[in-house]
């Protein structure tokens, strides 16, 4: 299948922050999470993808069209929700829908009505008067129905309560099943979007720490509790240890080592994705 988006050798320096080089491929039908601490470069990368900033080198292709050329047809293929939409404040939800809908040929009024209904959006109230959570929900209602094949959401859930997040996950799941689509979401709160994610792009201080398929990543980490003290030497696969507890990202090698050295394992367990991301982002 043809990639929806391709990022090659992308680099950008802003003051003393360096992003890249970044290489990424976005496949159709996938939900991708950009994960990283604050200041890791998630939003910068998204802005570069949206041609809102100019890369120092490298390029981005969306449906085979380079975004840095005069051909701007790719823009109708992307729906983008920035962290803070600009210019919305004086308008009501109704106004904003009337302004937004005609700009997108595949705009779906039913999807808008469904999201507005589920989130109980007060469409007669001015955006600027809404709570931050409500603003976020209205912004999503103005973005998802554009039905562009690529949906980019920058921190879409940062002000949402748990039931609203659940609703959004349902909405996005159904949206994905209605065509050849892909989602790229940035979040520093990994737990929010992890349930839905297929691939994780882990950013750390502007560098791409790794691209991981979620379940492969989870299955590659295991933790063990031993009934005797651990040897002073490093155990194969060892990531971190404390007393008789050890975490490994090469469980097979670790277990072979335990067997060969007759180290009795009393317990073996998987790690949560959040813990794994924590470990990934902690490593130098």
């Amino acid at each position: 299948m043809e990639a929806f988006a391709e990022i090659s050798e992308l680099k950008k320096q802003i003051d003393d922050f360096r992003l890249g080089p970044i290489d990424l491929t976005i496949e159709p039908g996938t939900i991708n999470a950009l994960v990283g601490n604050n200041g890791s470069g998630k939003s910068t990368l998204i802005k570069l993808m949206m041609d809102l900033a100019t890369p120092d080198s490298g390029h981005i292709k969306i449906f085979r069209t380079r975004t840095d050329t005069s051909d701007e047809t790719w823009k109708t293929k992307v729906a983008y929700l920035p962290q803070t939409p600009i210019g919305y404040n004086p308008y009501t939800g109704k106004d904003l829908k009337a302004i937004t809908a005609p700009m997108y040929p595949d705009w779906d009024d039913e999807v808008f009505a469904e999201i507005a209904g589920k989130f109980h959006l007060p469409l007669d109230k001015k955006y600027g008067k809404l709570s931050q959570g409500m603003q976020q929900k209205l912004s999503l209602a103005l973005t998802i129905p554009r039905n562009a094949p690529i949906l980019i959401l920058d921190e879409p859930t940062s002000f949402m309560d748990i039931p609203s997040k659940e609703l959004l996950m349902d909405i996005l799941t159904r949206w994905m099943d209605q065509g050849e689509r892909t989602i790229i979401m940035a979040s520093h709160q990994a737990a929010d979007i992890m349930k839905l994610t297929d691939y994780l792009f882990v950013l750390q201080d502007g560098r791409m720490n790794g691209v991981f398929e979620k379940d492969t990543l989870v299955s590659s980490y295991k933790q063990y509790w031993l009934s005797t003290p651990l040897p002073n030497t490093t155990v194969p696969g060892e990531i971190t240890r404390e007393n008789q507890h050890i975490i490994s990202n090469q469980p097979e090698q670790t277990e072979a080592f335990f067997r060969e050295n007759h180290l009795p394992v009393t317990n073996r367990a998987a790690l949560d994705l959040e813990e794994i991301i924590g470990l990934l982002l902690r490593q130098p």
Partner: protein
Amino acid sequence: MKLPIELSKDSREPIYHQIENQLKALIAGGQLAAGTSLPSIRALSKELEVSIITTRRAYQNLENNGFIRTAQGKGTFVAEIAAATKQQVKHDAVYQTMEDAVETALRYDYSTDQVEEIFHNIINTRKGD
């Protein structure tokens, strides 16, 4: 419809395999009758909090083995399966469980004789019930 599938992240059995086997058991056991509509790969992935790569692999294996069928544009459905296949699934599930139990015992340095003794103890307790 929500499927009664429960995944164990701590298990040594790969996740796709757990999904595949539990669906097989539901189909062979008759809880999912032929023609029942199954969730889309995306919907099941969300439900189970796994990636579509995992769910797709499970569905593909089930389809290749004739347990489910996909109708273009309509979705995925439970297939008609032969009585012999149902028997085979039950047989395999019981054998696999026994093998896993023996494997666990051997890992804890039990001898095969000891495993046999444990087996008899369990059976005798059952018979005594």
